[in-house]
């Protein structure tokens, strides 16, 4: 149910009345996300929004992505965490432009926050923007950040029932990355069960299995991201 144009109808009269509003919530976030999309499209920038629980391997995936691009000026990263700039420090060592957002009381990056950070960045040469959201499988799923591709990561140590427990994030993501596959021999994790549940939530989802430790599966994922980026901006 989406009410893009709020329909207002007044029922009854006199002292008490009911106003039929029929308006979807989340419109102020949508408006900021549209501004982000316009800012990025105007500069030919392709953007990723990485979402997962804390510790699933978002920063490790970013580091792997940075390894793929020789021209560091082409990539920019925005790190979201409740506190600290530890992740920004990790990324800065790779020689790319990075900004840290500390969301403090909020468990996700707000599009308005991202917009103001982007306005303060030098994006002249940027072609790929990577946003690492705050570690959380619930709230970031609700919030559009104007990204081209939403990526959800699930590590094999988190349990294979997670797509059933947190369906919204799997429903709204374009790519699912199953991480830490080097640990599969040590945990009970049914990859097929995850694939099935993720497809139920979103039949179009593309699924990758990777290990940042052995490098298994990474080339296919990084190539896919590059082809999505190139398809947008050449």
């Amino acid at each position, binding site marked *: *149910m989406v009410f893009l144009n709020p329909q207002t109808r007044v029922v009854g009269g006199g002292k008490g009345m009911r106003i039929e509003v029929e308006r979807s919530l989340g419109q102020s976030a949508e408006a900021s996300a549209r501004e982000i999309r316009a800012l990025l499209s105007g500069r030919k920038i392709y953007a990723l929004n990485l979402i997962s629980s804390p510790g699933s391997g978002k920063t490790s995936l970013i580091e792997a992505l940075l390894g793929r691009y020789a021209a560091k000026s082409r990539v920019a990263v925005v790190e979201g965490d409740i506190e600290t700039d530890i992740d920004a420090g990790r990324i800065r060592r790779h020689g790319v432009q990075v900004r840290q957002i500390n969301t403090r009381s909020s468990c996700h990056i707000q599009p308005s926050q991202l917009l103001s950070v982007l306005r303060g960045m030098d994006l002249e040469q940027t072609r790929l923007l990577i946003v690492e959201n705050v570690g959380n499988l619930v709230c970031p799923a609700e919030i559009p950040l104007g990204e081209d591709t939403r990526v959800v990561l699930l590590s094999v140590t988190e349990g294979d029932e997670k797509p059933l427990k*947190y369906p919204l994030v799997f429903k709204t993501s374009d790519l699912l990355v199953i991480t830490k596959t080097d640990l599969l021999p040590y945990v009970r994790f049914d990859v097929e069960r995850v694939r099935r549940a993720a497809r139920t939530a979103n039949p179009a989802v593309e699924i990758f299995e990777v290990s940042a430790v052995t490098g298994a599966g990474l080339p296919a994922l990084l190539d896919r991201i590059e082809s999505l980026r190139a398809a947008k901006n050449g």
Partner: protein
Amino acid sequence: MHELGIANETLDVALSEAHRHAAKKVTAIRLCVGVLRAVEPGNLSFLFEHLARGTLAEGARLDIEEEAIRVACPACGDMEADSFTSVCPRCKGTPVTASGGDSLSILSIEIDI
């Protein structure tokens, strides 16, 4: 705590409608919230009550209509489901796709004028 954002926006919409109709008071607000949204109604009501203090919507009743999860089976069609599942609750065999349960909207607002 995404309930805080929802409570804030609900109050904003209610107050702007109240002003538009020169209302004296907002008495009730009806929301439709899909189960997939993982919204805790008690939490949402608590936050709304707190934010609404000192406004025209102070003491307004928040009616939260829950929208059930729906799944679509290629064999059996569209149906309600108790929980999010990968296999059709009816024929048990066919993989289903999620077809509803993610609404998040304000349906109506009751005011005194």
